[in-house]
């Protein structure tokens, strides 16, 4: 039984068919990537899976239960968390507070406990802070804990967003182009980080344009084109699929291969 199973999912925006009968699955422990040209429907697919958009048809199964039709917060509470193509930090908060918000689904104090500062609340607050610091350390940003989120650079924002997503203790992590806007060095670090996330037992579904990163870390790749799956398989298979090369990879793959050698 796969961790995530997407069957026959379609979604249209007015006359535009953004997703057309998409089916794929992600097994526990995998790093699975979704690639495809701009406008292929990758982000839409993540939005549908994470409950931000509803699917017009199809069914989505996550950890043995159906999640299509659930609200995004219910899916998140069930163990799926994500980052966004444009990092979406809470800019009025500090870096640490951003990650502390990530502890929300794993903690419980409500209005009364928080207003009255009950002893249990004070203890929970301390645990939230410690856990958030740990996740910041994991992405290498514990030094920025007190900084306002708005003061961070683009790459750092991506990392804080990743820490926030990890703080929810997901079993499935969805990443939407985490390497875009990162330099080569940061991208290499990110690849390393995603591997370490897998070592923690977290499954990753990655949408990414950086082919050297994708080919390097993926176990399995789904190619999306005009909202439909074009090919699916291991990196070596995808790299040699003629149709994939024609519509998407083109010369980009040779560049990626070249940059890997240098």
């Amino acid at each position, binding site marked *: 039984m796969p961790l995530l199973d997407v069957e026959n999912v379609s979604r249209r925006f007015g006359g535009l068919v953004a997703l057309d009968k998409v089916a794929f699955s992600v097994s526990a422990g995998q790093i699975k990537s979704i690639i495809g040209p701009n406008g292929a429907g990758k982000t839409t697919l993540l939005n549908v899976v*994470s*409950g*931000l958009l509803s699917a017009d048809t199809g069914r989505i199964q996550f950890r043995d239960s159906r999640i299509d039709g659930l*609200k*995004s*917060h219910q899916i*998140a*509470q069930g163990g799926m*968390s*994500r980052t*966004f193509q444009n990092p*979406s*930090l*809470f*800019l*009025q*908060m500090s870096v640490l*507070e951003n990650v*502390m*918000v*990530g*502890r*929300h*689904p794993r*903690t419980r*104090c*409500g*209005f009364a406990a*928080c*207003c*009255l*500062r009950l002893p249990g*609340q004070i203890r*929970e*607050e301390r645990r*939230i802070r410690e856990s958030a610091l740990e996740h910041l350390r994991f992405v290498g940003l514990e030094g920025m804990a007190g900084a306002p989120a708005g003061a961070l650079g683009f790459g750092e924002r991506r990392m804080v967003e990743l820490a*926030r*997503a990890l703080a*929810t203790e997901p079993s499935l992590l969805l990443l939407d182009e985490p390497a875009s806007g990162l330099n080569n060095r940061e991208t290499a670090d990110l690849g390393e980080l995603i591997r370490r996330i897998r070592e923690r037992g977290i499954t990753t579904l990655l949408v990414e344009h950086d082919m050297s990163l994708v080919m390097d870390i993926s176990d399995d790749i789904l190619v999306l084109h005009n909202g439909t799956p074009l090919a699916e398989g291991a990196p070596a298979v995808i790299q040699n699929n003629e149709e994939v090369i024609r519509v998407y990879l083109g010369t980009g793959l040779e560049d990626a291969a070249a940059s890997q050698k240098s």
Partner: protein
Amino acid sequence: MLLKRLFPVIGFAALAIAVQLGAGALGKEFYLTQLTMAIYYAIVVMGLCLLMGFAGQVSLGHGAFFAIGGYTSAVLTTSDFSRFQDSLWAAALKRIHVLIPKADLYGGQVLTTTPWAAFVAAMLLTFLIACLIGYPALRLKGHYLAMATLGFCLIVNKIVLGTAWLGAADGISGVPEWNLAGGLVISGRSAVRVQNYYAACALALFLLILLANLVHSRVGRALQAIHDRETAAGAIGINTARYKLNAFVLSALLAAAAGVFLTHYTAGIGPSEASALKSVRYVALAAAGGMSNPWGAALVSTAINFLSLRGWFGTYDNAVFGAVLILIISIAPQGPLKPLGLWIRRLLSGARSAAGGEHAAS
């Protein structure tokens, strides 16, 4: 950390005492009456801070919630239920002291609701109505709540104006004192003026502490996250609709509670309390104090409402609130206290770094 949290509490308590002593020394103790009223109005504004400053939602109906609290209390404590004397429910309510027999002005006996029971009824009614309005409006993203509450406020205003047993244009008068507990009576009699002033201060301070506790807590962060980026908040697992609804209902309850207290204090309530203009004034005051800063909002709104109640603004009363709103939004959208605080901090750190620079040079 603890000191930082205690500082505003001590500051506010000291200010409250200084004002009372000052008014006494100047022989202007009657100022305390309007001040007490202004503090009750400030509680409505604090509730709006919770809703607007934390959760990022606007209500244009808080005047109506204030009125629902006040009118419920006024109706229940002034109506005579003695014609139901023999019914089972009246007997049961009498046994648990919800209804009590009382001598009326003309020496007869009436059966009225105790203020405490009326207070509970007002809170329950407000809770119900706030849920009914908030639930559909807050499931959506955007400013639907502002529209829904504005419509609601207009309806409530028309109802109180047009209903005979709510006193129509005259409102309800003759609301009895509220014997809170331990000899503390909510009443406008001058003999208990100072006592009532401190009671209002204590209530406001207590609520401010609760709100301040909320800021750095799981719930406070969740509300702020919704305010900042609702989509991202949902994707992290925050039930955005429920948190917004909770914040709205809580702030409506605060408004209604203020209405109950003020109605007992002034011994009556009128239909103007439910006007849309009143609701807009509360929003203006919350903005004027800095929505995400309940301390500032409480201070600014108490001051402005006090001046308004003293008649300082004359016939331009409502215009002053409009002007305050425009000024604040164009000059200091986060409220006047925050930029002031930043400015003082910059001055201080400037002085410090200048001193440090000299030191390094020598």
